[in-house]
């Protein structure tokens, strides 16, 4: 009863503070727009950039429509292969968000699960999980992601690698992000597990799994949510970076990072739009996620208020 009441209070505060923070509202609106744009890309986008028949090499390197030599068919211009840039960006954002969300979900489930178990059972399990976390922490996220990708390249045959690339990418990014979830979940579980409601549940003879999932988890969700939001920005950034380095998404399905890499080849020859627009889309997306993360952190961390 008490926890339920506390949760409603926090939620109301969340809504109250949200209504008083115009910056966060703008960020949320942009975030929502990009999610919608990504979700309905096949419906909104003028062309399908994955469909080889839908673009023509003759249309390549067309500048945005408002510039001289621009073509009204391609509002923000075309890339080196004549693909409509706007469509590519919409499809690319779709891929970036998909990989970002699924890798954060992967990291959250793995990290929270391990952290809960470590904090609840303590002892040897705790030591093992935290030692693994130590090892993981001694490797920077980008390195982990690159290594996992490299290993997958070595193990999987070439044909399968392209098909599984998105899964590999999700695992690679997810593995580099789980430690934060695990550490936070473990620390909060330590605090919660000695409280009376957990003891009551133990005396009632509930299964430890049930206690962790139903009793403890809802009470430690706050800080995990903050990490989730912040990590979403990190995941999108990592995906873009990997794709930019040419080890990320399949080449025939460009994400924002791939588009930027293609664009950099042409900045010296003056085709600036190929690199500028995908970069802008990526930055706007990450900034809005980061602003929301900052907001969550400020609301859920009483010390900052």
């Amino acid at each position, binding site marked *: 009863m008490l926890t339920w009441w506390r949760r409603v209070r926090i939620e109301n505060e969340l809504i109250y503070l949200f209504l008083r923070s115009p910056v966060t509202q703008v960020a949320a609106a942009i975030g929502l727009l990009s999610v919608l744009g990504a979700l309905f890309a096949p419906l909104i986008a003028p062309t399908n950039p994955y469909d080889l028949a839908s673009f023509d090499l003759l249309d390549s390197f067309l500048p945005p429509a408002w510039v001289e030599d621009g073509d009204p068919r391609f509002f923000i211009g075309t890339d080196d292969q004549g693909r409509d840039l706007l469509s590519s960006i919409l499809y690319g954002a779709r891929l970036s968000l998909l990989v970002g969300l699924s890798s954060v979900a992967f990291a959250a489930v793995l990290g929270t699960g391990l952290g809960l178990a470590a904090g609840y059972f303590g002892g040897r399990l705790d030591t093992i999980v935290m*030692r693994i976390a*130590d090892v993981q922490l001694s*490797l920077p996220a980008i390195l982990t992601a690159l290594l996992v990708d490299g290993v997958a390249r070595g193990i999987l045959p070439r044909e399968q690698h392209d098909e599984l690339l998105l899964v590999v990418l999700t695992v690679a990014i997810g593995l580099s992000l789980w430690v934060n979830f695990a550490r936070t979940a473990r620390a909060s579980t330590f605090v919660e597990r000695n409280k009376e409601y957990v003891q009551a549940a133990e005396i009632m003879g509930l299964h430890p799994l049930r206690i962790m999932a139903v009793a403890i988890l809802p009470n430690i969700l706050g800080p995990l949510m903050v990490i989730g939001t912040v990590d979403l920005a990190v995941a999108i950034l990592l995906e873009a*970076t990997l794709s*930019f*380095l040419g080890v990320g998404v399949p080449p025939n399905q460009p994400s924002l990072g791939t588009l930027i890499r293609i664009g950099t080849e042409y900045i010296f020859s003056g085709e600036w739009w190929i690199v500028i627009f995908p970069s802008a889309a990526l930055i706007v997306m990450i900034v809005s996620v980061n*602003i929301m993360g900052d907001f969550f952190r400020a609301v859920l961390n009483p010390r900052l208020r």
Partner: protein
Amino acid sequence: MFSFILKRLVQSIFVMLAVSLLAFALFRFVGDPVAVMVGQETSIEDQERLREQLGLNDPVIAQYTRFLGNLVTGDFGFSYRTRQPIGQMILNRMPATVELGFVALLISLAVGIPAGIYTALHNDGVIANAILITTLIGISIPTFVIGIFLIYVFGVQLGWLPTFGRGDVVEIGWWKTNFLTLGGLRALILPAITLGVYQLTLTMRLVRSEMQDVMNTDFIKFAIARGIDYRTVHYKHALRNSMVPVITIIGLQFGGVIAFSIVTESVFQWPGMGLLFLDSIRFVDIPVMSVYLVLIALIFVIINLIVDILYFVIDPRVRLKAEAS
């Protein structure tokens, strides 16, 4: 003190053992080393002989021990791609990365710490807010986009600075340095800024939050109540007490800079270790990958160890807590 250092040392060795195990597994079980080394027309018997020669038929434990022994004695094996000794390859590339990382770190600290202090002390000022918004954007712009933007403005449009490679280097023994020629220094500017921006925002945010925390403590409030002038309170009492975590940042950032230089080196075609690692991933050059993994982990572990010991020396609270337990 001694027992604390010993405990941390044992922990570090454990981490390194785990990483080396990982590197060994990578080297041994990802792909078949023999198949990579020989051509397609080599007979099965020859392959088997090579396998026996390399000791790949020994028990796995024995192989791991040998792998570990080789690592410790500095024998890193040969690259699949270039057939050169890996130790030599990495040593050739190291100066470029270290110099780039050093300058980037310098930029990040020289700008980040003062900016952090300023924003903490002038909480709602216009300039402080402007700095904060800038850093939020700075943290959100991917490193490679910053690099491309700098190349476009200063390389393509203005034509002021070189945009790829190291420029002129001077050799001092085996160490090739950028610092001694004008061309080398000019080539350093754009990559170092690119690499430093992200670290700069991190530094600033950490210094700011630490300083704010200290400003809220009782002893600062008391100092202000006593009528000590703000300058002394801010720069003598508050600053000194918020500098402890900065040691951590400096340490961790050096590791971060080395790791993130992978991206910057790729944008500017800077011939450092990061570019080498990237090439080895593209060509599935497993031995180089596993050595690089061990090397980066070693850098991180050593830095962490130094930071922890420094903490222990500088912060009496940490010392007391460790002694109590």
